[in-house]
């Protein structure tokens, strides 16, 4: 019986090629999309689960009240965990330092070299290919490389016992080779350097007071449930030692607490400051899964609509089969097998599409997925195809199986299902329009983010970090820089806004955050910031080190607008307590965050960068000159620089990715919806051939016939737009809430989305409608 079902299915598909083509293409595109996102979701959910003891591993986080929560904790905490907690089986500390390596006369800036101890191998599952995990990181100046790092440095030589030289001349001996870290890990290292190299023999506890020595701490607990106990004990210790903590770290650590975070939650649920690498967000999984589901649903709807629309043709067969003894169930099964055959065929096409789309997807998401045909992946694929086939086929199957034989045998068409088809088409277009609106708003917001005036110039602004002993001869360096022909202006500073400086607080009762930047008298001019009141620093007045510049918002909040030049303002830095001038508000972080009070202080000891404004016409040659000049000042470090506009562009990479994905998804949604519409219109036109013939004979014009055929469908698109608008508004508005600065969702976006959908639908319908309207009436009438 089954064999016969499939045989019939294949013959039917072959006989109705156009119809099968539309269905298979639609389903394949939908499935490819869905599979792609499934692979993505599966990968995202698998993060850090490759560790054998993943369920017992926790990360320590630090909640510093008003200053937020951070993933990095003070180094000395590790000894508390090791000594005071029987629930902790092993604890490891990881930290990062800027690592520049001198290798074969070349500078290598390594961003993924971590300092840690051998407890890392007790907590995590990072197998060593060579070396002993117990001892590899025990001694100072030892390093464990991953296989690919070893390959990079030593090629095919045996890396064990070789040395790697840091820029300060320290030689690190290779004591182990680890397998490469899987891509689904929340942090990825290229090498591990023994922590003792950094701390010296006295260990971590000495670094307590410095706070600069923060790092990530991971605990392996005896049982997963012990986390609650450890958490409670931590709270107890912190509240008991509250005064000691404050005395130790400073008043703003009052009420700070430590918490445990499940390792497997980090990638999707953790977005703290000081993460080792940027994490993902579970919200994206929800959004993408929803979109995948919707796109697949669109394809399924196409199938349902086209199949039920063809019920007139299939109806005769249903009638005959019922007469010769078919039961409803048997017929339903037959139609289901047809949809299964189609969906399996679509799967093959989907996999081909997947191979084509994967590089694009990787590029959009910044991932490096490859398609592996492991049994479980194939199983997943087939499962998706079968479910799709069953779902798409279920309604048509029961619809067709329910047809009464008598009516069908008499050739009466069934008019049922028309309203459902209309609803489904409306639904399809509503989804498409929601996606179009979302895309438009996102692009609007993205361009707003990129074009908003930030309160300073962003082009041709270059930051050069002051390395080595350059901080000591910064003024000499600045002098030389300003003499270069392509350099318009130079300033020494903590950095461009958003880089460097730090956040402190003002007000004793209710402390508020205030951002502290350091810059010399040339900072405002270099950055193109506007002074609105008072005066700038004057390099001739040495007393100006006791003054500060403040932004408008800060001046307003602190009531300094009419106190310029007077002493007695709250000091934010050393003895700087005279507000000298007010600077027009400028952004120091991404537009997700509102502007906060910001203060600029002139302090020679705090300059970490030279900030340059370059002449636009000669950027390349100026860069070359800068690089040539560098080794005279810092022979033992590479020349590095950063353009402000590149830095700013980086801030919204996640949003840009999302934006690009939405463009792709809306295009697909529209494509699928139009494919379905195309089929449906073709079918309607075919059914109405006779009517069109008669109308033509009685003098109908082509235009009136096209209108006749298109009107109904276009009405649906209009209804869809009306349905889609409020849904899209709510969704998009929620997304926009993530930004402190955002665009208005204006009416023209809805209008544009609606018109786009209508236009595309019109093109789709018009082709078929015109074709039908132009047909020779004699032909169509004789056909009867």
């Amino acid at each position, binding site marked *: *019986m089954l064999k*016969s079902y499939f*045989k*019939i299915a294949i*013959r*039917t598909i072959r*006989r109705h090629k156009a119809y099968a083509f539309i269905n298979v293409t639609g389903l394949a595109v939908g499935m490819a999309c869905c599979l792609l996102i499934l692979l993505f979701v599966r990968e995202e959910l698998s993060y850090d689960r490759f560790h054998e003891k993943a369920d017992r591993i926790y990360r320590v986080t630090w909640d510093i009240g008003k200053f937020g929560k951070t993933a990095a904790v003070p180094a000395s905490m590790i000894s508390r965990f090791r000594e005071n907690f029987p629930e902790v089986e092993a604890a490891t500390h990881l930290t990062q330092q800027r690592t520049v390596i001198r290798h074969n006369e070349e500078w290598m800036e390594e961003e993924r070299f971590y300092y840690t101890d051998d407890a890392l191998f007790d907590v995590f599952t990072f197998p060593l290919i060579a070396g002993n995990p117990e001892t590899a990181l025990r001694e100072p100046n030892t390093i464990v490389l991953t296989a690919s790092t070893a390959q990079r440095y030593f090629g095919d030589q045996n890396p064990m016992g070789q040395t790697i030289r840091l820029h300060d001349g320290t030689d690190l001996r290779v004591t182990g080779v680890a397998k490469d870290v899987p891509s689904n890990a929340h942090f990825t290292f290229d090498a591990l350097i023994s922590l003792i190299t950094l701390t010296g023999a006295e260990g971590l506890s000495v670094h307590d007071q410095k706070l600069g020595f923060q790092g990530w701490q991971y605990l392996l607990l005896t049982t997963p449930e012990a986390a609650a106990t450890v958490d409670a004990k931590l709270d107890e210790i912190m509240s008991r030692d509250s005064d000691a903590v404050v005395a130790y770290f400073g008043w703003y650590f009052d009420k700070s607490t430590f918490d445990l975070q499940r390792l497997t939650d980090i990638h999707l649920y953790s977005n703290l400051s000081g993460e080792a690498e940027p994490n993902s967000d579970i919200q994206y999984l929800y959004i993408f899964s929803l979109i995948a589901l919707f796109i697949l649903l669109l394809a399924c709807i196409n199938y349902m609509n086209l199949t039920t629309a063809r019920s007139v043709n299939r109806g*005769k*067969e249903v*009638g*005959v*089969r*019922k*007469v*010769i*003894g*078919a*039961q*409803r169930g*048997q017929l339903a099964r037959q139609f289901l097998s047809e949809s299964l055959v189609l969906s399996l065929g679509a799967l093959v096409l989907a996999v081909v599409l997947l191979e084509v789309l994967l590089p694009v997807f990787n590029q959009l998401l910044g991932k490096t997925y490859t398609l592996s045909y492991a049994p479980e992946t194939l199983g997943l694929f087939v499962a998706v195809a079968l479910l799709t086939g069953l779902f798409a086929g279920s309604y048509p199957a029961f619809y067709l199986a329910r047809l*009464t*034989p*008598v009516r069908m*045998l008499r050739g009466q068409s069934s008019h049922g299902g028309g309203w459902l088809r209309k609803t489904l088409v409306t639904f399809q277009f509503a989804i498409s329009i929601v996606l179009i609106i979302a895309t438009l708003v996102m692009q609007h917001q993205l361009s707003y983010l990129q074009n908003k005036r930030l309160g300073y110039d962003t082009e041709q602004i270059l930051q050069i970090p002051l390395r080595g002993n350059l901080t000591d001869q910064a003024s000499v360096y600045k002098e030389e820089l300003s003499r270069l022909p392509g350099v318009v202006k130079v300033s020494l500073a903590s950095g461009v806004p958003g880089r460097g400086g730090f956040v402190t607080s003002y007000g004793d009762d209710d402390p508020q955050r205030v951002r502290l930047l350091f810059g010399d008298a040339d900072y405002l001019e270099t950055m193109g910031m506007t002074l609105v009141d008072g005066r700038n620093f004057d390099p001739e007045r040495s007393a100006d080190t006791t003054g500060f510049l403040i932004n408008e918002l800060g001046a307003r909040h602190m009531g300094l607008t009419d106190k310029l030049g007077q002493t007695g303002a709250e000091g934010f830095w050393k003895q700087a307590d005279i507000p000298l001038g007010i600077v027009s508000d400028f952004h120091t972080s991404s537009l997700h965050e509102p502007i906060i009070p910001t203060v600029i202080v002139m302090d020679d000891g705090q300059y970490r960068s030279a900030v340059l404004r370059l002449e636009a016409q000669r950027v390349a040659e100026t860069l070359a000159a800068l690089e040539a000049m560098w080794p005279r000042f810092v022979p033992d470090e590479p020349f590095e620089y950063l353009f402000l506009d590149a830095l700013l562009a980086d801030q919204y990479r996640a949003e840009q990715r999302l934006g690009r994905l939405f463009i792709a998804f809306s295009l697909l949604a529209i494509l699928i919806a139009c494919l379905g519409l195309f089929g449906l219109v073709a079918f309607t036109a075919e059914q109405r051939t006779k009517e069109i013939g008669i109308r033509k004979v009685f003098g109908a014009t082509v235009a009136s016939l096209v209108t006749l055929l298109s009107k109904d469908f276009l009405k649906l698109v209009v209804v869809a737009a009306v349905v889609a608008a409020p849904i899209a508004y709510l969704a998009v508005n929620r997304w926009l809430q993530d930004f402190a600065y955002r665009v208005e969702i204006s009416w023209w976006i809805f209008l544009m989305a609606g018109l786009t959908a209508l236009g595309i639908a019109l093109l789709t319908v018009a082709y078929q409608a015109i074709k039908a309207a132009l047909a020779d009436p004699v032909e169509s009438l004789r056909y009867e």
Partner: protein
Amino acid sequence: MISLRNITKSYSHGFSRTFVLRRVSLDVAEGDFITIMGPSGSGKSTLLHIMGMLDEPSSGEYYFMGEPVHTFSDRKRTDLHRQHIGFVFQAYHLIDDLTVYENLETPLLYKKVKGSERKSLVAEMLDRFNIVAKKDLFPSQLSGGQQQLVGVARALIIKPRLILADEPTGNLHSGQGDQIMEVLKRLNEEEGVTIVQVTHNDQYAAYGDRVIELLDGRIESDRATTPETVEGS
């Protein structure tokens, strides 16, 4: 075999009702060969469909081999009809996507007949109707008469007790029509299969032993085609 009591079939259109059959009562005995005649719209086909359990009467009782069909569920009716009733149609109604062989096999598939038995039954039918050579052809490749032969063979393959034929010769020219009627006649006489046919053709009506005339949904006359049958209704 069949006993219809006060069968009425009507459709409502808004506030008005159209009656297709009005209180029709009719008995068909095992082995009968009955012809239903009447002008278009007199309810012949509807009556045939009700007998074949393809359609339900609006009211009235229907006993098939003593069983009260009017009380049965859809599924049970389907069971009954596929066990005992074969259909032959004016437009043949073969399944276009299936070969002759497969068309014959399909009713057996629905009856869940085993593969080997299916094969022999189909072979027997092909042989009996002399269409072995055509078994791999599709209906569109056959002449009308050949298609109708397949239609009859398909109706017979489940070994029905009753064959309902709705103008089986309507689309055929006379030579082919005669051939089909001969087949039906032989079935009735040699195998005792009960046959009810609808026809417009007086000559073919004579193949049966009883003619029922319908007019406006009522039985106008019910007479034997041979002298010994008593006239009446």
